[in-house]
């Protein structure tokens, strides 16, 4: 999964618009389709929430069961994001700096959670951590299963953000630090970590956004037990099924706000990286 850090800053010499007639029409069609598919439906969620009113929004997201689900989702997403920031960096480090037989296989394994259908991901995790667990771990239907599923589906994000930055890192600086007497720890802490920080932050943001909206991998694994293993997206689905679009939209708005915040943070981080480079 390649990540893009688009350098879209307009250089002062370039005109505001260079669209010809044909690209103008192209842009029009593009925007029309994008609006019909993404923008109008997403704004429908906001509009439905607003139509329901503030009181309805607040009541929906503070109902015991829903509030518990939201708390579990956010807590698990935060914990998993932290684990990913550390484990993802370590794995990226091993993939870039270490050499051993079978490394290519690890590269492939990292992308599996990204490509695997989420419902299959749930089934996959059940086979090792469910009731027939060969390890004797019975995590199915517990809140721990939520953490497990989040860890699985977000695995590639941090690794794939950090890896390219690590590959580009200039080794001379590290050697200079080492030759000046810095220990490996100090070199890592003072030289390597600052260059990796933006990529780690970006990967963490992606992990968090993905985790907070996760649904498919939990269906079979967590059992969606209220007050125990039920997450926010399950609450949205029940609201839809109970013909309560305003309630569903309220929880969805909350999730959207979180996602948007994450994207803004991601964008700021990327811009900082670009301006430094």
């Amino acid at each position: 999964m390649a990540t893009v850090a688009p350098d879209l800053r307009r250089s002062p010499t370039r005109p505001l618009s260079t669209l010809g007639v044909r690209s103008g029409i192209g842009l029009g069609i593009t925007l029309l389709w994008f609006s019909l598919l993404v923008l109008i439906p997403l704004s429908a969620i906001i509009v439905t929430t607003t139509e329901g009113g503030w009181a309805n929004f607040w009541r929906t997201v503070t109902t015991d069961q829903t509030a518990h689900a939201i708390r579990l989702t956010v807590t698990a997403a935060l914990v998993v994001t932290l684990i990913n920031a550390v484990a993802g960096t370590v794995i990226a480090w091993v993939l870039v700096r270490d050499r051993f037989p079978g490394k290519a296989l690890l590269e492939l394994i990292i992308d599996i959670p990204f490509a695997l259908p989420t419902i299959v991901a749930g089934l996959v995790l059940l086979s090792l951590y469910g009731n027939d667990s060969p390890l004797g771990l019975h995590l199915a239907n517990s809140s721990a299963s939520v953490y497990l599923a989040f860890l699985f589906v977000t695995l590639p994000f941090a690794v794939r953000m950090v890896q390219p930055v690590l590959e580009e890192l200039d080794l001379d600086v590290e050697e200079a630090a080492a030759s000046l007497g810095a220990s490996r720890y100090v070199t890592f802490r003072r030289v390597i970590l600052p260059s990796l920080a933006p990529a780690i932050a970006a990967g963490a943001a992606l992990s968090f956004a993905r985790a907070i909206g996760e649904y498919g991998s939990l269906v079979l694994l967590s059992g969606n037990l209220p007050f125990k293993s039920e997450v926010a997206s399950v609450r949205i689905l029940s609201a839809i099924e109970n013909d309560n679009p305003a309630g569903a939209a309220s929880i969805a708005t909350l999730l959207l706000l979180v996602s948007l915040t994450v994207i803004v943070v991601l964008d700021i981080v990327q811009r900082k990286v670009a301006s430094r480079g």
Partner: protein
Amino acid sequence: MAESHVTRHSKGPVTYLLRAFAIVYLLLLVAWPVALVVTHTFDNGLESLRAVFADPDTVHALRLSAFAAVVATAINTVFGVGVSLLLVRSEFPGKRLLSALLDLPLSISPIVVGLALVLVYGGRTGWFGPTLESGGLKIIFSTPGIILATAFVSLPLVIREVVPTLREIGIEQEQAALSLGASTWQTFWRITLPSVKWAVVYGVVLTLARSLGEFGAVKVVSGNVLGETRTATLAVEEKYLNFNASEAYAIAFLLASVSVVAIAIVSILRSREKRISS
């Protein structure tokens, strides 16, 4: 270049410790569970796979998934290449915003995607739904809805592959072609498209894998009617919950094989490309 990094350092205990951590972590989280699903599928030899293909409803579900994935991928490929060209080759107000919004589908919960589509295209209370249905076009609880949901969730994948490549190749060749009298159209087909060919291929393969496996968004918009709007991923859930685990494993195995083969193709092509370019 990765090689030169490695050989300059002597391997200390930390190296081995980190390596062991990475291997054990990936083994426990991904490799072992995936391997178990494969072995579960073949617990009774080929029996469960045979049962899957003998059940007309499951075959229909597989076919529907494949159809929706192919249509969504075709739409996203045309859209993605077009948007990438616009983003890289021209300037217009709001370009930054559009570029940021295009990534939105990757960070949105599939259930929220489904809800959003229902609110607009739902047949009863949606914004456009009732009008479209009176015109004979049923979207929600029908195949077009499944295609829309699938196209939504996999929208940015082609763009993310093509934009960096397009930026990298620059515009010299295109300008040369144009100055030699080629039309915009000829330049696109003869110069631009061939040079981003591999990026498009990666994007298509990833989109196809992602589309085939979409579950949450499809669950909301499809209505999950057996033999009509039940897709392969929905069939996995249904089979498993109805204590037919062996067939659930078999369908899961089929879906997982496609996605694993897809990412294997991409990573092999990519490492070959890297070797050629370095």
